[in-house]
């Protein structure tokens, strides 16, 4: 089970001080948040993607690469990567590059994005959001698995003999989560490919998301990737923690009341009762998270939204500290005891490498000299076997020659 922090990268006015942080402050701050996430023993940091103010994260791979350079253990991911308005070729290239520089400590979560004006800026139509997401992923899936891709679809110019570079690290594609709470097609696609399914259910009663999660589990089994229990599920969440329950409510209330998404709507009490928002003492937050497990069964990843609603950086860091040092260790221990041995471990690069190669040699793609086209002839890559065989032959020839010289 992995625990972590996710950010949507909003730049929101602090309703208590009236100050709005600059983009520069938020960008520097988010790196601090990610470092803190690792420091307190959490596993994952995720950042969103937006292309309009008041959000700062338009280029998640650049940000995540910087964080990768300043951390050692943290798994970096997205919440989410827009599979609709991005060219899947660019996603394939950028995230494969991130995978290399992060030594495999990354994966990504795909989402559609619901900001209508963004679509036309990238030449797309929001009414085609779902087919775009499905078709684009079909292509992305192949770009990471086939050295040379010939492809034709409805939304993108065709590809003939295209190679997405760099090839994924160890020739093992980054793990993909498909984020959705109410679209069966997305859950079906996640199940079809044996990918992860993520429900960021933070605005709705948890029970509403259960049905789609269960549908995904059934279909995961149907497609032969394992049993229902072995399907890979992630959940969103948000928390505000204090030593005493009433302090949590009084500290968080001014921020909650003016939060862009749910502010001026339900009361903090109503919202935290009806949705996964956990506000309260350490124990109350622990109990709420354990409640997710009771509902969804074993799952592999739990992310928390903390840097939102205009909370200043120091409060966000304090929250991550409480989450990482007081809440999660208890939840981890408790869930470890409850875990069904059949359920899947949380996905990591090492696990995927082991799954693909076992104890065998790991392919390291090495391109051949540029021959100007990928269309004719075989792979543009020297295969690992060829490379290894050639080296061994050379080494044998050399040692043989040396032996001959000695004789």
């Amino acid at each position: 089970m992995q625990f972590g922090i996710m950010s949507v990268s909003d730049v929101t006015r602090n309703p208590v001080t009236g100050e709005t942080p600059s983009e520069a402050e938020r960008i520097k701050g988010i790196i601090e948040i990610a470092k803190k996430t690792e420091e307190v023993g959490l596993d994952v940091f995720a950042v969103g993607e937006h292309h309009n103010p008041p959000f700062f994260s338009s280029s998640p791979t650049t940000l995540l690469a910087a964080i990768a350079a300043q951390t050692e253990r943290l798994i970096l991911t997205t919440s989410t990567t827009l599979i609709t308005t991005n060219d899947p070729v660019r996603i394939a290239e950028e995230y494969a590059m991130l995978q290399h520089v992060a030594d495999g400590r990354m994966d990504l979560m795909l989402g559609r994005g619901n900001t209508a004006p963004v679509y036309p800026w990238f030449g797309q139509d929001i009414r085609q959001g779902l087919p775009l997401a499905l078709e684009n992923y079909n292509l992305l899936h192949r770009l990471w698995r086939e050295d040379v891709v010939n492809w034709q679809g409805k939304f993108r110019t065709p590809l003939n003999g295209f190679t997405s570079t760099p090839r994924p690290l160890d020739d093992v594609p980054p793990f993909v989560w498909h984020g959705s709470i109410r679209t069966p097609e997305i859950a079906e696609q996640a199940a079809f490919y044996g990918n992860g399914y993520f429900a960021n259910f933070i605005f709705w009663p948890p029970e509403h998301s259960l049905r789609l999660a269960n549908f995904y589990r059934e279909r995961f089994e149907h497609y032969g990737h394992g049993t229902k229990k072995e399907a890979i599920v992630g959940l969103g969440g948000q928390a505000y923690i204090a030593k005493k329950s009433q302090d949590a409510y009084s500290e968080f209330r001014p921020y909650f009341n003016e939060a862009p998404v749910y502010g001026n709507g339900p009361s903090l009490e109503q919202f935290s009762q009806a949705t996964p928002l956990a506000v309260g003492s350490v124990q109350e937050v622990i109990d709420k998270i354990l409640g997710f497990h009771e509902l969804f069964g074993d799952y592999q990843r739990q992310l928390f939204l903390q840097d939102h609603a205009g909370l200043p950086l120091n409060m966000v860091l304090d929250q991550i500290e409480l989450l990482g040092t007081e809440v999660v260790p208890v939840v981890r221990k408790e869930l470890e005891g409850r875990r069904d041995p059949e359920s899947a471990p949380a996905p990591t690069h090492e696990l995927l490498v082991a799954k693909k190669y076992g104890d065998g040699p790991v392919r390291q793609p090495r391109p051949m000299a540029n021959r100007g086209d990928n269309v004719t002839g075989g792979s543009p890559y020297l295969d690992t076997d060829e490379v290894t065989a050639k080296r061994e032959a050379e080494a044998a020839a050399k040692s043989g020659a040396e032996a001959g010289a000695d004789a």
Partner: protein
Amino acid sequence: MTSAFSEPTGTNEAEEFRVVVVNAGTSNPSSTAMLADRVVEELTNRADANGAKLTATVIELRDLAQEIANGLVTGLRGEGLERASRLIVDADALVATTPVYKAEASGLFSGFFQVLDRDLLVGTPVVLGATAGTSRHALVIDGQMRSQFAYLRSLVAPTSLFAATEDWNDPNFATRIRRAAGELWLLIESRFAARLRATNWDTYQHDFGSAKSSGDNDEIDLSSDLMRLATGGSLA
């Protein structure tokens, strides 16, 4: 949030029908609620005459006002709205009444139907009623409210019940109420809604997991074009 709902009235024997009253009147006593009561009374007479039983449950929108507003701004439906939604799912008919404000149905009334699932009322017979201080608002139901219920694919009875102050003492208004109740009774008794859903359900737009959906995954159409695309197929 129990105050928003009255206990069902009536006994359970013979053929039983469930009517839900949605009332957006806010005063107590309210002429809007009274209008709904009179429709239910007439409807009960019809049921009695036909040896059937009728139970009526009232949803007072005043008590759901906060939840309706919250639903409109956040999409979150509170406990009261969820309960209202479950009542309407099982309703054989709706009697929906509202006061007229500024030449339109109360925002409470239209807001309530805006936050519910869009397939909740498919085929459900409805009598619409509105009350106002002046007869100048007489066309609010037929000119405006019907379109929302057409969008919801409900079956609105031909007679709508508009009551300005002077109508309450007019014997013709009592006749109109009887007429509307008579229309609604026939629509209920014919079980039009249930038969429509049995034969035509898949032709209406649904949102995944709506209150009206069966709740099992058999309802998900795995053979659609989009599902083929989801599983590596192409649109072309």
